[in-house]
């Protein structure tokens, strides 16, 4: 394999650059945290910004964010050379390291924001289920009440207020979570492909796009599986928000590209070679064309065109799928692309995905499926469906 790879290298690379350091797992990590941030921001649109039409996907978005969040640190952990030492990042964090802050940002977001919000939102139902459910599940619900079984009017009012406050806190937290992931890359001055002040912002908006599109997908698929009608007003609104976020994301990335091209620094030659020789498919075709322009046209047509609902649903579904491909490609282009040229700026390396092993394709796909399994369990445990209820008022009478 080595000889085969050597032949594909072009120009000169430093000897230590032969192996890529961050592979598929590190592509997965920003992709998954992006889904968390995006799904959460969608939920907060309903909760804080009172976009009531999104109510059918509110709880779904929260549970999706939670499911992906649980999986988010796994790719990082599996990638470490010494995972058994990972706790050192919490116990003896190095304060100048952006990466050392991961544990704290993650713990804050998972424990303080997501879990609390889900708990406050579901507390009334959990209390009811802990009384009505039979079998061992009853004890689980009892445990989940954390002893707070008061569902009087005043208590529910408090739940609602607490939920709102947490969501308001959650929006900057979601921004922090994913902006921070962008900062990890954007602050590496040694790497001209990464080093950009726009990186955190680009990561944030691509996160919003991918998270919202993912909730869209999950909503459509779960509705189909459960043979329930899809709320078209909700889906249209969702499509609209995805479109706006996509436009901002696209504009920011275009600005970044234009800025680099116009400044034409020392690295411009190797970076243009990188795009044309190594990233053409994943950047130009998958990210820009299939993951950006085509979904934009599709969303405009489905949202504002005069089309039958069946057609709209089909377009939304395809668009949401394409967006996932596009955003995953974007993560790939950043993480892998940033390591495919030499820091001597004189050559390009090669990366071939392995099938097996911790950095392999199968393990990565397993990690991608894991949130789906977790989401399934969460849906069984805390059903997010509001069939038959027209709005927040019905399932939570105190509101």
């Amino acid at each position, binding site marked *: 394999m080595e000889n085969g790879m050597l032949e594909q290298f072009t*120009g*000169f*690379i*430093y*000897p*230590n*650059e*032969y*192996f890529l*350091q*961050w592979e598929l797992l590190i592509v997965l990590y920003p992709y998954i945290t992006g889904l968390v941030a995006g799904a959460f921001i969608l939920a907060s649109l309903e909760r804080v910004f009172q976009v009531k039409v999104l109510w059918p996907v509110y709880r779904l978005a929260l549970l999706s964010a939670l499911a992906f969040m649980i999986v988010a640190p796994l790719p*990082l952990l599996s*990638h*470490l*050379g*010494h*995972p058994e*030492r*990972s706790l*050192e*990042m919490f116990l*003896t*964090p*190095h304060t*100048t*390291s*952006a*990466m*050392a802050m*991961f544990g704290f940002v993650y713990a804050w977001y998972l424990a303080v924001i997501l879990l609390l919000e889900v708990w406050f939102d579901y507390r009334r139902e959990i209390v009811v289920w802990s009384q009505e459910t039979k079998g061992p599940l009853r004890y689980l619900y009892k445990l989940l009440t954390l002893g707070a079984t008061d569902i009087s009017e005043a208590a529910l009012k408090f739940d609602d207020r607490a939920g709102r406050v947490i969501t308001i806190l959650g929006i900057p937290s979601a921004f922090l979570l994913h902006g921070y992931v962008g900062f*990890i890359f954007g602050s*590496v*001055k*040694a*790497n001209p492909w990464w080093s950009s002040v726009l990186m955190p912002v680009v990561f944030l908006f691509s996160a919003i796009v991918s998270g919202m599109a993912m909730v869209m997908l999950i909503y459509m698929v779960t509705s189909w599986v459960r043979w329930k009608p899809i709320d078209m007003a909700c889906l249209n609104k969702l499509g609209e928000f995805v479109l706006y976020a996509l436009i901002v994301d696209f504009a920011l990335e275009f600005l970044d590209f234009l800025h680099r091209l116009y400044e034409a620094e020392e690295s411009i030659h190797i970076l243009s070679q990188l795009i044309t020789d190594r990233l053409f498919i994943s950047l130009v075709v998958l990210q820009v064309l299939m993951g950006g322009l085509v979904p934009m046209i599709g969303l405009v047509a489905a949202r504002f065109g005069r089309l039958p609902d069946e057609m709209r649903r089909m377009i939304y579904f395809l668009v949401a799928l394409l967006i996932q491909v596009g955003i995953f490609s974007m993560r790939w282009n950043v993480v892998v692309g940033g*390591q495919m040229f*030499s*820091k*001597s*700026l*004189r050559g390009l390396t090669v990366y071939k995905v392995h099938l097996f092993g911790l950095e392999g394709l199968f393990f990565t796909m397993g990690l991608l499926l894991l949130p789906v399994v977790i989401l399934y369990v969460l849906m069984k445990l805390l059903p997010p469906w509001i069939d038959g209820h027209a709005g927040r008022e019905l399932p939570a009478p105190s509101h």
Partner: protein
Amino acid sequence: MSLDHEDVGCPGDPAPADAAGREGAIAPEMDRRQFFDLCKQALPASLTLLAAGLPIKLANAETSAPAANAAAPEPRLASYAMAIDIEKCIGCGRCAAACKAENKVPDSPHYVRTWVERYVVPKEGETMVDSPNAGIDGFPDLPAVDTLKTFFAPKLCNHCANPPCVQVCPVGATFQTRDGVVLVDEDYCVGCRYCIQACPYGARYLHPEKQVADKCTFCYHRITKGLLPACVEVCPTQARVFGDLNSRSSPIQRVLRFNPIMSLKAELNTRPKVFYANADQEIR
């Protein structure tokens, strides 16, 4: 029994004695029992005073100690650095081979702590660079181009004064010693490889067996014993000169003084402590 007021209280604790003296509470005819009773009564007060006085005493001790030792000279810390004279390097690769042997660097050509690059600048077109097996086995024949100039450039960790690798390490496993050498604590490194990404010089790699970041240490185990780094020791032309920037008599001072000097990627503000003498701008 006659007691002078200065004798009451513990030795070395003048405060209670002073207080007791001012009160004048001690009768000259005091018997032993009365004396102990008085001591019992004074105990809380003297303990409080003692507790309040102790930190002051300690603080005084701390501030006065350096003043007392001011006459003794502080041991002067070195600031280790290397200078590489491009005009002197013949590209023999002995430095890279010695480094591998001295530091048990993995045998593969894709893990190196130091390497030698060959630059071929043609009269027209792009400069060609190569470093087959870090230059250990020599270099192939020159490419058939109309050559303007050729030279060799040995590379290693720059032991930056402002090291990005140290900045990004999430656990502080990579650090700067007080004598200016950047090292990795292999018992602490988690193997996240952020430092490898942050290094602009490609000086770091992930050790395939230890699964920790690894790189040049300036042969810290040797220089702290007064020896030279292995690569400097074996260099047949003294292209590599090692020394202490804080010592005026160090051989590195002469190289820095009498040659035009540059450091690599200076625009990144890493402030390298590997200096290149008579180097071409093509080196990066």
